């Protein structure tokens, strides 16, 4: 077996590690700016795709299929992102006689459609967020609207069918006037999209993002895993994931697993996938969507179950049956947390920070796993997303795992570009985080409530060392520093303090 990994960065390296452990040959692909990236060096063979922009490289189906043909690869692993949920790519691979390490193209297409996925969930008996199910009749009377609203329950959203970006959307709290909201949303939607159709959907406020990893083989066996909690998000971007969730008890865990497995069976799912749910404050959960691929956050599941999800992906693709005890997938040992380290500057409004990593010294030691796609000296490209690595820890329980993560974050040295490491140090010390009191909107609210102090706790002797270093550096340089010139004013960083930190 020879697998072409149609991806880059940490996930390409992650997949190649699994390949190597199984004795499977690997082919890397790379855009021009990734020629010296770790994933290229790691592979047995590498094919240049030309260009830098993803649309001309990692997203070019023709080039990828051609690279597989030229290198004699017989399988393709898409990773996550890029073409991972692109049914056309999967179909092109199948048409080229390649085995795709993932579900069948039809299943990718089916679950990629919001309505079709929701209908499949309903058929499988998986709870979905209650709603009108389709557009409200254009001529509905006020009474009819109110009756529908009562049936769904408040609070609820009025949403434009053609909507997006919050336009044509209204939140209606209990006791508020639904009719006005429907008329207003329809009018706004007509203006914005030329289509005034709206529908109703229950609003799950302060819900938690809970997801169920599953594996399904070609022989009908589906194994759902203990849930992951991914509620710590900034503007819908996941930052911290963990397993198990503090909000899920054993009964809910079993119910989530059964729901996920039922949906997977309903659509004839194969390989690894994840079903995302919203968990409300009463412990009820609702289907959100299915990700028909490996997730960024799969390592936390691996750490508490001891099962290697990527190796299983490859085995399933080879037609092997799932032989593990399914109980093991549902019986987490200890607790695992992942922090996604992004090249973004939390002290400058999360400004993206591509550039050369003058140093990359990841933490190590007991219970620490770092999946990185970068190394010292690597130039983090401006063309792709900003994730540089995933820092994952395991420990006996959640509070120990938090301490271990803080220890690991303290060890992590990244030079040259600011990252979200200091942000994580702050989050992990929040009382609410320690208590598990959060939902998907928590972090945005917590960030909005900050007073602008930098994210890092400063070492006690740090300022002294900084002065010493600056003084001695100046003496060794033989210079007198920058002289009396006024520092260049940079609008985007006007407010950044001289005492600032990354």
């Amino acid at each position, binding site marked *: 077996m020879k697998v072409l990994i149609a991806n880059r960065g940490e996930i390409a390296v992650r997949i190649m590690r699994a390949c190597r452990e199984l004795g499977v040959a690997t082919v890397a692909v790379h855009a021009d700016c990734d020629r010296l990236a770790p994933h290229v060096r790691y592979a047995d063979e590498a094919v240049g795709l030309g260009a830098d922009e993803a649309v001309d490289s990692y997203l070019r189906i023709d080039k990828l299929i051609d690279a597989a043909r030229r290198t004699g690869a017989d399988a393709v692993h898409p990773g996550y992102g890029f073409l991972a949920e692109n049914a056309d790519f999967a179909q092109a691979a199948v048409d080229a006689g390649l085995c795709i390490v993932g579900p069948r193209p039809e299943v990718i297409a089916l679950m990629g459609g919001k309505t079709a996925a929701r209908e499949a969930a309903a058929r499988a008996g998986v709870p979905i967020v209650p709603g009108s199910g389709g557009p409200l009749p254009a001529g509905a009377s006020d009474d009819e609207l109110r009756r529908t609203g009562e049936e769904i329950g408040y609070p609820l959203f009025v949403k434009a069918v053609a909507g997006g970006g919050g336009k044509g959307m209204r939140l209606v709290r209990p006791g508020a006037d639904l009719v006005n909201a429907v008329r207003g949303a329809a009018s706004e939607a007509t203006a914005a999209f030329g289509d005034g159709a709206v529908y109703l959907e229950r609003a799950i406020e302060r819900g938690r993002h809970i997801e169920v990893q599953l594996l399904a083989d070609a022989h009908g066996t589906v194994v759902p895993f203990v849930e992951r909690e991914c509620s710590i998000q900034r503007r819908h971007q996941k930052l911290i994931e963990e397993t198990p969730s503090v909000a899920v008890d054993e009964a809910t865990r079993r119910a989530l697993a059964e729901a996920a497995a039922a949906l997977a069976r309903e659509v004839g799912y194969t390989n690894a996938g994840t079903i995302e749910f919203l968990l409300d404050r009463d412990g009820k959960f609702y289907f959100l969507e299915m990700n028909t691929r490996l997730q960024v956050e799969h390592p936390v599941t691996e750490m508490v179950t001891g099962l290697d999800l990527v190796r299983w992906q490859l085995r399933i693709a080879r037609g092997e049956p799932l032989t593990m005890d399914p109980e093991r997938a549902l019986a987490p040992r200890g607790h695992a947390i992942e922090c996604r380290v992004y090249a973004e500057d939390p002290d400058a409004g999360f400004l993206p920070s591509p550039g050369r990593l003058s140093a990359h010294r990841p933490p190590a030691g007991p219970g620490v796993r770092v999946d990185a796609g970068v190394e010292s000296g690597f130039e983090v490209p401006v*063309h792709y997303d900003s994730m540089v690595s995933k820092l994952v820890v395991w420990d006996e329980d959640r509070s120990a795992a938090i301490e271990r993560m803080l220890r690991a974050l303290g060890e992590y040295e990244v030079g040259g570009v600011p990252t979200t490491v200091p942000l994580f140090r702050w989050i992990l010390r929040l009382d609410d985080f320690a208590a598990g009191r959060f939902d998907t909107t928590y972090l945005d609210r917590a960030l909005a409530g900050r007073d602008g102090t930098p994210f890092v706790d400063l070492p006690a002797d740090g300022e002294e*060392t900084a002065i010493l*270093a600056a003084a*001695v*550096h100046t003496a*060794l340089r033989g210079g*007198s*520093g920058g002289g009396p010139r006024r*520092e260049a004013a940079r609008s985007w960083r006007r407010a950044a303090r001289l005492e600032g930190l990354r």
Partner: protein
Amino acid sequence: MRVEIAVGGRLHEVTVEREPAHPGRFRVTWDGATRLVDARIVERAGREALLSLVRLDGAAGSREVRCVETGAGGGLAVHDRGVVWRTVVNGRRAAGADGAAAGGDGEERVTAPMPGKVVRILVAPGDEVAARQPVVVVEAMKMENEMAAPRAGTVKEIPVEEGTSVDAGRVLAVIE
């Protein structure tokens, strides 16, 4: 040698004396206290230097720090165990803690803080803009970033077009 070092919002008058008998050994004095260190540059690459500091005065703090010269105004970022201290050596702080709110006269340039691609231009030459009003959107790492006017004024020039790839520091707009 006397050096003015600004860090943490405070300015320190620092005296640096070489120990003649020991190359690489320095006495560094500020706030009435003297520190004795052995210092050497372990490696240098462009504007970065890895500096080894060994305290000989019994205090903790022997380690390697990375010094990166930033900008032309004497800026020196000291990277110490994951924390960056932004110091200014013999420099002057930009007037006011927040220039954006301070107004003022003369031209102000809106520059790209990182490399990226101009995806939207929100104003045209001649437009009046308020302080902090977004003028250009630059995409980098799949994120859109609004670049704002540093102060209220009139747009004098937009020297980029939609689709232009820009390096860090490239002028995106001039406000007067």
